[in-house]
């Protein structure tokens, strides 16, 4: 059918658009929504999806690749290095212990040893896609438990490679010859050392490319000012790395993750992220739908007790191992529970590994059928388990822990709210307090919150961008809100929340550079304060003094320059609003700088105190 793929796209999109908002509405999160959508349009309900859903699953796995690229972008190398103990220690132990326990149980119920080993290690893997998406959606990724979960997932992604290499060895003698559909890489005909070299070369190419080639290339492309070119380049990077990794038999997700980490420090980080985000989101959604559609309900209904026991057994074993390891790695009880409730499902690699093991003759179809169904069901259970975590565990255990405590909801009010009490916000707050102005502080650093409380300040712990927290802090009665957060994106978010819910509040916002000062002005904030402006002008004035300028002249020059700079700033915002062409942030900064210099040239007169200048008087006196 000609319109076949359009019809399919329609079915997928319609299912997602209907199911996800409903799931969100009931607080189930988007992953569960996608999974339900998949079940509904799958062959066992409406049956819109045909036989090619395995292809769709393969295609959609690219969403996972993109997700790891984005995660890499958000993860600076320093942070990754700090996580190394968790990745190798916790991740390694998790795979080995879970694999061994699961294999032992399988042997116990009569599975042949070789097959049991393959099953055990496959089941030790968890789903990167589901866990990261769910944790991120619930803002749990930044917690200690979330970081541990991330480290474990990262190790698992690496562990897939040796597993693929190992499975052929597990094949019983005389089993089907390796058909090599999945293991068939460009280098598979090479001897072992050759393959190793190829892998090292490929990783080297990604690292060197990320370091030295991608930056200049992206800069060139940004100069074309065609947004779609930048998007194309981003996709090109991801697809290219996936191909390269595939050619040497490495995980594409791992390769793009590496490239992402290398680009994390580049000036294009935000563009890359925002360009790839819609693709990532849609493909991930497609992936979850495909997982939902692949749950074989016929099999489940044929032997319901066996499948349910299998799912429960898998989840229980993984849960116990994760909880134990989490405690050994010194996670507090609630964080260890987060880790254990987050990762007990089996990951998407299981589909690949089971079909691979089937081809290699390690596992028989009779064994893989129920396993695949159990894997898909265990994935569907994960969002539910995390709901349990948030609604049962966190309120009981988390509230006492400083790192995860619930935002306070006492109702008190000050004339001024200060959001963010770092070095910037605390200076503002101290000045206000010293001037006798009642001030309420909102901050997310629990230690600082405790300290400020002891100092007798009205302090609220929690995310200031939440309307309910603002309300509890007395935003409805305050007159001003000082936004001193240290992330421009959060600042903009907060501005939006305030304008929507508390329009009477006057906003004073901290900005960092021209870019976000422009954005704040565009968002309608009139009081915008660039972080470093006053300090740099004071330094500039001192530099003039050290060069021999009189102190008051240097002071006046700085005063004039401040005024001039503010004016140019506001004028530039107006002009930027006219131009609709897309420019990369880095390019934009250079252009802003250019315009600033132009403006300086047009009005060089910092020394305009002509009232104190007797030159014209002297001239007139001479002429008489």
């Amino acid at each position, binding site marked *: 059918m000609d319109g076949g793929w359009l019809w399919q796209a329609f079915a997928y999109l319609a299912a997602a658009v209907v199911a996800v908002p409903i799931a969100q509405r009931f607080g189930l999160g988007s992953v569960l929504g996608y999974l339900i959508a998949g079940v509904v349009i799958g062959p066992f309900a409406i049956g819109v999806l045909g036989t090619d859903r395995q292809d769709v699953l393969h295609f959609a796995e690219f969403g996972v690749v993109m997700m790891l690229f984005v995660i890499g972008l958000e993860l600076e190398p320093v942070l990754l290095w700090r996580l190394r103990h968790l990745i190798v220690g916790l991740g390694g132990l998790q795979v080995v212990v879970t694999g061994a326990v699961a294999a032992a149980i399988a042997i116990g119920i009569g599975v042949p040893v070789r097959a049991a080993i393959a099953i055990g290690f496959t089941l030790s893997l968890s789903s990167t896609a589901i866990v990261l998406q769910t944790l991120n959606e619930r803002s749990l990724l930044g917690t200690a438990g979330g970081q541990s979960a991330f480290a474990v997932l990262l190790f698992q992604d690496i562990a897939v490679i040796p597993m693929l290499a190992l499975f052929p060895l597990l094949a019983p003698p005389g089993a089907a010859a390796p058909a090599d559909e999945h293991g068939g890489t460009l280098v598979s005909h090479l001897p072992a050392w050759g393959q190793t070299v190829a892998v090292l070369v490929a990783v080297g190419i990604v690292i060197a490319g990320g370091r030295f080639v991608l930056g200049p290339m992206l800069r060139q492309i940004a100069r074309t000012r065609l947004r779609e070119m930048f998007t194309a380049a981003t996709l090109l990077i991801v697809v290219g790395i996936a191909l390269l990794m595939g050619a040497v038999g490495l995980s594409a997700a791992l390769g793009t993750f590496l490239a992402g980490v290398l680009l994390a420090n580049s000036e294009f980080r935000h563009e890359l992220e925002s360009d790839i985000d819609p693709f990532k989101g849609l493909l991930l959604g497609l992936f979850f739908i495909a997982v939902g559609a692949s749950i074989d309900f016929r099999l489940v209904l044929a032997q319901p007790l066996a499948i349910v026991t299998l799912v429960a057994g898998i989840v229980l074993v993984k849960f116990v191992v994760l909880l134990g390891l989490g405690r050994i790695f010194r996670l507090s009880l609630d964080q260890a529970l987060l880790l254990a409730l987050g990762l007990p499902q089996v990951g998407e690699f299981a589909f690949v590994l089971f079909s691979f093991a089937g081809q290699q003759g390690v596992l028989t179809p009779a064994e893989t059928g129920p396993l695949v169904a159990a894997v898909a069901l265990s994935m569907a259970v994960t969002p539910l388990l995390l709901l349990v975590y948030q609604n049962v565990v966190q309120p009981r255990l988390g509230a006492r822990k400083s790192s995860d405590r619930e935002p306070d909801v006492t109702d008190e009010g000050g004339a001024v709210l200060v959001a963010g009490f770092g070095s910037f916000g605390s200076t503002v707050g101290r000045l206000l307090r010293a001037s006798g102005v009642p001030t309420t502080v909102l901050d997310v650093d629990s230690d600082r919150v405790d300290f400020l409380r002891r100092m007798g300040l009205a302090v609220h712990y929690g995310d200031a961008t939440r309307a309910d927290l603002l309300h509890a802090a007395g935003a409805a009665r305050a007159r001003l809100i000082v936004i001193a957060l240290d992330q421009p994106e959060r600042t903009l978010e907060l501005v939006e929340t305030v304008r929507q819910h508390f329009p009477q509040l006057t906003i004073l916002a901290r900005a960092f550079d021209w870019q976000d000062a422009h954005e704040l002005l565009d968002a309608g904030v009139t009081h915008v304060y660039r972080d470093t402006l006053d300090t740099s002008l004071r330094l500039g004035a001192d530099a003039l003094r050290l060069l021999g300028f009189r102190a008051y002249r240097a002071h*006046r020059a700085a*005063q004039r320059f401040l*005024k001039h700079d503010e004016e140019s700033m506001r004028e530039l915002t107006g002009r930027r609003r006219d131009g609709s062409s897309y420019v990369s942030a880095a390019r934009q900064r250079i252009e802003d700088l250019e315009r600033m210099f132009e403006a300086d040239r047009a009005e060089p007169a910092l020394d305009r105190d*002509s*009232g104190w200048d007797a030159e014209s008087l002297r001239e*007139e006196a001479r002429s008489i």
Partner: protein
Amino acid sequence: MPRVLIQFAHPALEGSRVHRRLLAQLPQREGLTVNDLYEAYPDFDVDVAREQALLVAHDIIVFQHPFFWYSTPPLLKQWEDLVLEHGWAYGRQGRALRGKQLLHVISAGGREEAYQHEGYNRFTVGELLAPLEQTAHLCGMQWTPPYMIHGTHRMTEPQIDEAAQRFRTLVEGLCDGRIDLGRVSRYPTLNHAIKAADAGAGK
């Protein structure tokens, strides 16, 4: 109708009993502009272009301020230095202020008797204001004897209210063109002139 600009200078208005009341009593009306200098230029960075435009747009310029060391608060002096530019306010080409009236409204802690030759302050207010009078003269402005609010240290609340009421009457008279500043120069202060006029009207 003449347009009146009040150039108000007080570095600590929040602590002032008299000037706060004076300002509060001022009418909101067309043709009257109040320019709070310490509020506009807390860092003494006077916006010369803005100030010159204000001066050009008005006919009667009132300097309202407390008497600090027999003179104006420092920002008003800074304002004079920067705004009254050579070639604009004075000098061969400086004609921008020609024909405008200049009036000082001054509050002083000491009583009127103290500002006499035989008094505590040894000079009259008019004598002490000589530099400002000459400044007006050099700019081609017409100098008016100051309007004094004496003895603020001992003023009771009702007395302050009364002073504020009288000040309001004065400003409205200026705005309405009912007070002819051209005919008061022979009096030592504007207060004397008003008293004489009231006495004349009463007869």
